[in-house]
């Protein structure tokens, strides 16, 4: 490459007649594959599957009513959310942020896909059993917890994203038995509670936006 060629499109990105060359699609797929590998998305999916198995096992033993019927599934949902938060961590840090122009799109897409996968596998795990709160409650609680995990990833770093959902749950679990009325303690509210759903959705949106636009905070140097 000569100095004159700097600034010109690379062969893979060059367009012919306004259409992308066949090689560019392959490069895009490769980019996605590398991104998924760098975020350990496959391992995350395995963790989500394990959470679904744990949920199914727990629902077999749990009573249909009472605090435990809500609290233990919530813990498992928090585990799934923590796993999604952990995928936000970048092993490359600043070099990737400086050169990866499509990172926000990748972050947004992968996070949404993982959130959808988490809901899907957990709902499948609870399909033949009684899940207190039902699918609607699962969607709200899981969405809110994922939002907290993403926010924690943005603030504390992806590796410490689990602190958010686990800490939130530790504080709000007693609320499930105590029937708190604050919508911000959405796990304690009935599944059709509009305020709780709005709060959970807001937290999910905030977390998604933070991770999409900014990404997870780089790990502190001393960890």
């Amino acid at each position, binding site marked *: 490459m000569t100095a004159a060629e700097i600034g010109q499109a690379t062969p893979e990105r060059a367009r012919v007649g306004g259409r992308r060359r066949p090689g560019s699609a392959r490069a895009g797929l490769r980019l996605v594959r590398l991104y998924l590998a760098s975020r*350990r998305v496959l*391992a*995350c999916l395995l*963790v989500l599957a394990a959470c679904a198995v*744990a949920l199914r096992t727990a629902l077999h*033993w*749990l009573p249909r009513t009472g*605090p*435990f019927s809500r*609290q*233990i599934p919530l*813990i*498992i949902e*928090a*585990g799934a959310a*923590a*796993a999604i*938060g*952990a*995928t936000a*961590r970048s092993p490359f840090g600043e070099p990737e942020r400086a050169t990866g122009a499509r990172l926000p799109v990748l972050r947004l897409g992968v996070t949404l896909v993982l959130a959808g996968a988490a809901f899907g596998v957990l709902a499948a795990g609870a399909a033949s059993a009684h899940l207190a709160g039902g699918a609607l409650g699962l969607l709200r609680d899981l969405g809110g917890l994922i939002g907290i995990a993403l926010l924690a990833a943005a603030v*504390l770093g*992806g*590796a*410490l*994203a*689990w*602190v958010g959902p*686990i*800490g939130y*749950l*530790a*504080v709000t*679990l*007693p609320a499930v*038995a105590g029937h708190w009325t604050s919508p911000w303690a959405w796990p304690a509210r009935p599944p059709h509670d509009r305020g709780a759903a709005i709060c959970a959705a807001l937290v999910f949106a905030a977390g998604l936006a933070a991770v999409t636009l900014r990404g997870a905070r780089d790990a*502190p140097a*001393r*960890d």
Partner: protein
Amino acid sequence: MTTATAPVTAPRAWRVSSAAGPARLLRIELRRSPMLWLLPVLAVLFYVSTYRPAMDNPPFWNIRSGTIQSHTMLVFAPLLAGAGAWVGSRDGRRGLADLVGVTAVPRWAGQVASWAAAAIWAEALYLAGVAVVYGVTAHQGAWGGPLWWPVTVGAATVAASCAVGFAAGARLPGRFTAGLAALVVFLALAGGAFAIQDNATYAQIWPLNVQGPFPPDSYGIFYPYLPDLAIAQVMFLAGLAAVALGVLGLPAGAGGRWLRAAAAAVTVAGLAAAGTAVGLAGTARVEPHGIVIPALHDAASDRATPYTPACSHGAVPVCLQPAYRAYLPEVTAALGPLLGQLAGLPGAPARVTQVVVTTVTSARENGIGFGGPVISGRPPVLYLPLSGLTLPGEGNAPAAQFTANLTGQDGTAIVNDLVGLPSGAPAGTGVTGVNFELGPRHAAQFAIANALDRVLNLTGPWSVPSGAHPPGRSSGAGTGGNGAAASGSGALAGSGAGARSGAGAGGGAAPSAAQQQAAVDRFATLSAAARHAWLVIHLAALRAGRVTLSEIP
């Protein structure tokens, strides 16, 4: 001068004692531990989960210490396990395992130093939080002294959580390990709660279990805090921590032969301690003053704590344990009118003395039933338990609620006891009523008791339930007792009017509801002096069941 002629100085040998290496390493780890980053988060969570709930309750050492053990550990244990896993997985995540494996300090000693640094910071925060809560409690003038066993169990839980997480992180380093370690510990705590509610005996070892089904205000005041369960819990947690750390020293790269042998010994000792503790917890039983494990029980704990009671100066003095001194006006206001009406009657209490409990029975789902007040002795003394009642200020409960509860529950029990209706039966959690065999000879007792309830407004709006025969009413301590349950239901079952299934089974013709109602109305409309005079003469016969409805004026 050439290099050949330069004086040769022997390199200085830096000899340090064998303990200096790990100690220096610990100092470095203390400065660089990632646990420092988590301390602000843990401090906020301590405030939200422990400090605020503790301050929402009255300043009793037992309530505050119970909150510290159960609430704090529910929050801290999963987070510390996750943080421990994060610390433990550092070498693996950074690809430093080979590098640190060849340093002068054995690998196991280095790992123990990393764990110790994390645990020390966590313990420091936990103990600082305890100091704040206990300091405020002392400032608020709580009677007695702080309970240290729940704090010790909490400290052991902190160390064990860090150790378990650390071992998981060291064995399985990865970005998901910390979250999964936190999740597993969280699930273990929830599973323990579930098991203990399912009456699994060995689940008493659960570290969030303070005194089994006892509500926090029912132990550690009249009698010393029973440390039996706490000792077993500390033993279990120490064993768990020893196993987690000992396992790290078993691989070949962890250190020399002696060090690995020591690690194996620590692991075996930890397993033995944890197993023994679980076995001991299986022998735990509910006693009036707490959970007793026979092998760990100290008979000295069964001696009552001496105190000088705080007494009112009415016609019937009410004496409370000094820890409850602040509630003397409310108790006097709740029982004073009733006691004034009953004063001078044969068998009526001449004095009220607070006791911790009258009777205790275990109930389903880790529940417990406390008996209500009992009148006994000569001169008669009313022994009044307050444990399990919602005290003024507890969860922002107003004083009026406490007074109303006391009047409604214990007032009716006192009247029942006085007129000879069955009392003293315990109310267990989940029991919806206590049925006694009541026959026509009890009809007059019911009528008098109902009339007194009505006159003294003991049970609020009064009515004879249709179909009740004889009219049902709260009966005895069984329904008016201070039912309490660790499971949180805490329902005071059957404290309202309830029909007796055994009514009419005593033989003879049972009076009709109309006759019963008429007798109640007649007696309730008498003047206070006339009622009192009639009771002075006829109370003994009434108690013996020799008074009929028609004899009631």
